[in-house]
C-alpha cells in the first residue's frame, strides 16, 4: 500500500481505486505523431486531435474537474483532483491539451462568472472540446500588465473590442479567450475589465490570429488582432472595472498558488518525446565522448549535473513540504516559488546539456547526428519562454520579496 493512501479520506480512497483501475484499462495508445515538449507548442491538428481525444476520455471517466460542482460539469467531490492527478502522473498518461483552459480560465470563470455562463462554458472546457487561450499581454503591456490598451467600448448591451494581444499560445486552436480589456482610459488598474470572448467563431470577422515564430523556428504562439469585435455584456466576468482583481485569480492559479487544484496529466514517454530532467542529463553525459572517456567522467560536469539533480529533488521535496503546515512559516512562501523554480531549473538543465554536448550542441533538429535529435538546444531556447512569459523571473522575485518578505514594492 503506497503511503499517500494512508492519508486518503474514504471518499478519496475509493476514488483513487476507481481512477487507477480506469487508467490501467484505458491508457491511450502511442501517438501517431511526434508530440512537442509541452502543450503550449502544439502545432498540428494531428497532435491536437490525439490529445483532445485523451482529455475527453479522462473527463468522461471523471478525472477532470472532480472538485467542481456537478452543475458546471464537475463531479462535486472534495479534494479529489489531487488524487486523479497523482494517478495520471504516476501512470505517465499524455498531457492535456487544454492547459490554459484548465489552469487559468476554469477557476477564473468559476469564481467570477455568472451561473449561466459557467454552465455553458465549463463542461466543454473540462472535456477539452473547447480549447482556450489567454489574452493578457500586449506589445506595450508585458511585465506591466496593468497598462493593457486593448479597448472595449460600450454600445448598449454590447461591447466593441479593438486592439492587439501578443504571445497568445494555442490561439490557433482556441474557441475561447479569457481577456483583459480596458473599459476606462482615465484610470490605470481600475479601468480594466475581464471578459471571455469567442475567438474561433469570429475569425475573419473582427478577429485575426496570426502565428508568431519563436527563436527556435517553431510556431505555437500568436498575435491576435481585434477589429470592432462585438461581444455581449454577459461575457463579462465580475463587475466593470474589476478586471485587475479577476486577473489576480487567474495568475494565482497559473502560479499553482490558487485555491483549486488544476487537473494535470502527463509524463508519457514515447519514442519521440524528450525528458529534460537531470536523469536525462546523466544519460546524455554517459553517451557523450570526452577526453578519452565520457562526459560522465568529467568532474566539473559531474558537479554541475548533481547541482541540477539537487535543485530538482529539492523542488519535489518542497512540494511535499508545502503540505506540512508545521514546517511552514508563511503560507505563500513555497507556492509563489513554483513558477520561478520550474523555469530556472528547466533553463539550467537544458543549458548544462549544451555544455555537456560541447561542439555537438551546434547540431539542430534537421541534423541526423545531433545528440537526442537536437532537442537540447531547442529546449534551452524554449526555456526563455518560461523565464519571460507569465511574469518574468524578475517579476517573480519582486512578488516573493514583496509578498513573502514584506519588502517595499520595486516599482
Amino acid at each position: 500500500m503506497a503511503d499517500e493512501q494512508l492519508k486518503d479520506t474514504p471518499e478519496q480512497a475509493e476514488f483513487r481505486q476507481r481512477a487507477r483501475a480506469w487508467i490501467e484499462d484505458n491508457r491511450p495508445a502511442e501517438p501517431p505523431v511526434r508530440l512537442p515538449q509541452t502543450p503550449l507548442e502544439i502545432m498540428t491538428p494531428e497532435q491536437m486531435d490525439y490529445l483532445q481525444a485523451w482529455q475527453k476520455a479522462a473527463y468522461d471517466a471523471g478525472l477532470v474537474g472532480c472538485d467542481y460542482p456537478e452543475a458546471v460539469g464537475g463531479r462535486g467531490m472534495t479534494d479529489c483532483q489531487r488524487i486523479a492527478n497523482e494517478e495520471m502522473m504516476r501512470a505517465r498518461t499524455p498531457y492535456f491539451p487544454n492547459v490554459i483552459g484548465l489552469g487559468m480560465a476554469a477557476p477564473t470563470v468559476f469564481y467570477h462568472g455568472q451561473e449561466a455562463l459557467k454552465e455553458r462554458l465549463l463542461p466543454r472546457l473540462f472535456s477539452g472540446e473547447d480549447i482556450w487561450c489567454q489574452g493578457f499581454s500586449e506589445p506595450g503591456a508585458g511585465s506591466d500588465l496593468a497598462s493593457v490598451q486593448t479597448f472595449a467600448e460600450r454600445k448598449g448591451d454590447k461591447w466593441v473590442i479593438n486592439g492587439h494581444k501578443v504571445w497568445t499560445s494555442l490561439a490557433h486552436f482556441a474557441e475561447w479567450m479569457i481577456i483583459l480589456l480596458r473599459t476606462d482610459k482615465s484610470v490605470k488598474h481600475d479601468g480594466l475589465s475581464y471578459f471571455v470572448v469567442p475567438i474561433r467563431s469570429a475569425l475573419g470577422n473582427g478577429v485575426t490570429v496570426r502565428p508568431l515564430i519563436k527563436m527556435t523556428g517553431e510556431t505555437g504562439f500568436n498575435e491576435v488582432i481585434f477589429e470592432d469585435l462585438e461581444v455581449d455584456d454577459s461575457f463579462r466576468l465580475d463587475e466593470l472595472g474589476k478586471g485587475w482583481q479577476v486577473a489576480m485569480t487567474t495568475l494565482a492559479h497559473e502560479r499553482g498558488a490558487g485555491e483549486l487544484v488544476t487537473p494535470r496529466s502527463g509524463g508519457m514517454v514515447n519514442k519521440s518525446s524528450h525528458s529534460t530532467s537531470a536523469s536525462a542529463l546523466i544519460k546524455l553525459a554517459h553517451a557523450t565522448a570526452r577526453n578519452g572517456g565520457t562526459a560522465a567522467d568529467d568532474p566539473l560536469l559531474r558537479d554541475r549535473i548533481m547541482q541540477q539533480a539537487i535543485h530538482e529533488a529539492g523542488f519535489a521535496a518542497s512540494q511535499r513540504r508545502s503540505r506540512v503546515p508545521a514546517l511552514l512559516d508563511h503560507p505563500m512562501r513555497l507556492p509563489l516559488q513554483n513558477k520561478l523554480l520550474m523555469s530556472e531549473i528547466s533553463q539550467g538543465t537544458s543549458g548544462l546539456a549544451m555544455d555537456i554536448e560541447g561542439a555537438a550542441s551546434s547540431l539542430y533538429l534537421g541534423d541526423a547526428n545531433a545528440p537526442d535529435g537536437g532537442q537540447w538546444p531547442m529546449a534551452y531556447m524554449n526555456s526563455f519562454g518560461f523565464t519571460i512569459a507569465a511574469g518574468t523571473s524578475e517579476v517573480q522575485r519582486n512578488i516573493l520579496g514583496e509578498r513573502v518578505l514584506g519588502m517595499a514594492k520595486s516599482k
Partner: protein
Amino acid sequence: MTQPDDFGFTEEAALLKESARKFFSEHFSVDKLHTMVAADPTPERAPEVNWDAALWQQMVDLGWSLLAVPEEQGGVGMPLVGVAGLVEELGRAAFPCPLLSTLSASYVLAASGDGAHQALEEIAAGETAALAMVNASGSWSPADTSVSASGGRISGTAWYVQDAGKVSRLLVCARAGDKLGLYWVAADAAGVEITQDGIVDPTRDQAHIQFSDVEAVCVSEQAGEAFAAAMPAIWTLHAADMVGAGEWQLQTTVEYVNQRQQFDKPLGFFQAVKHPLVNVMIDIDEAKSLVYASACAVDCEPDKAAQYAHMAQASASDMAGFASSRSVQYHGGIGFTWECYVHLFFKRQKHSQMLWGDGPWHRARLAEILIDSAA
C-alpha cells in the same frame, strides 16, 4: 519502503520543534549569545569554551540529548525527522552546546551492535559525547583516522573535534591493524590531552586531541559499517543546523533592509538587495525541504538515505556560505562591526559550511550514486 508524503512529521515532532523554539526564545536571546561568546574580540585571543552548562542541563532534563538513543537503551528513539526539527531550532539560536555532537555519536553507537549498549545507556543517563575521527588534513572519511588502537589502548591525534571542551565522553575511530574500531573513552581519562583550537567561530569550540596510550572500551570493530549507516543522519542534522542559522540570517537581514532607509526608500525597495535575499530564501527552502526528505529517508527508506543526505548537506552548505555573505553585505557598515550580531552567525555558518564535507564533496559522493550507478 517508500516515504510518506508528509515526511512522517507527526504532531509529536511539531510539538518538539515548537517547544524548542520557545525554549530558545525565552532562555537564550541573541544578546545573551553575544555577551557570552563575544566578550573578547582580539583576533589572537586564547581559545575559550563559552557556554551555559546550566541551561544545557535543562535541555538534558527535557530529554533532548537522548532522543537518538534507542528505547532499549533507555532513550527515546525518536524518528530523525523529529530530531531534525529540534536541531533546526538549535541552529536558529546558535546555541553553544554538545547536542549535535551527542546525537551524532548516538547514531554511530546505535549502528554499532551490542558492544555499544553500555555507551548508549550512559548517554541516556545524561552523559555527552563527541566524535573524534578526523585526521590533520581534515578528511571526512573515518578510514583516514590518524588514531591507532592496540590491545584496548589508543594512541594518536584526532583533529577538528567539535564540542570537545563540553563533553564528558569521546567516541574515537581508531585503526587496529586491518580493522577500523570504535572506542569509548572518558574525556578526562589519563593520557587524553585536549587542546582547544583558536577558531574564528565563537559559537563553537573545536579541539585536537592527543591520545597517549589511553585505555578505551572497544565498542565495535566494524567502525566503517557503523559510520556508513550513521552518516546520513549526521549529515542531515548538520544541514538542519545550517538551515536554522540561515533562517536567522534571512529574517534579521530582511528586517534590517526593510527598516533602514537610504535615498528616502527602505533598502528592500532596491532589487539589488531584494532579489539576492529572495535567492537566499529559495536556497534555504531547498535545503530545508531536502533536510526533511533526507530525515524521512533515514526513517523510512534507508536505501535512499545517503543520496538524500548528500543532497541536503550539499544544498545547506552552499546556502550557508551565500546567506552569510549576503547578511553582512546588506547590513552594510554596521554588519561589518563586532557589536552587530550578524558576525556571530556569519562565523558559525562559514564554519558549518566546511564541517562534514562541503558542497562539492557531497556532490562528488552523490555523483558516485547517481551517475556511476547509471553507467
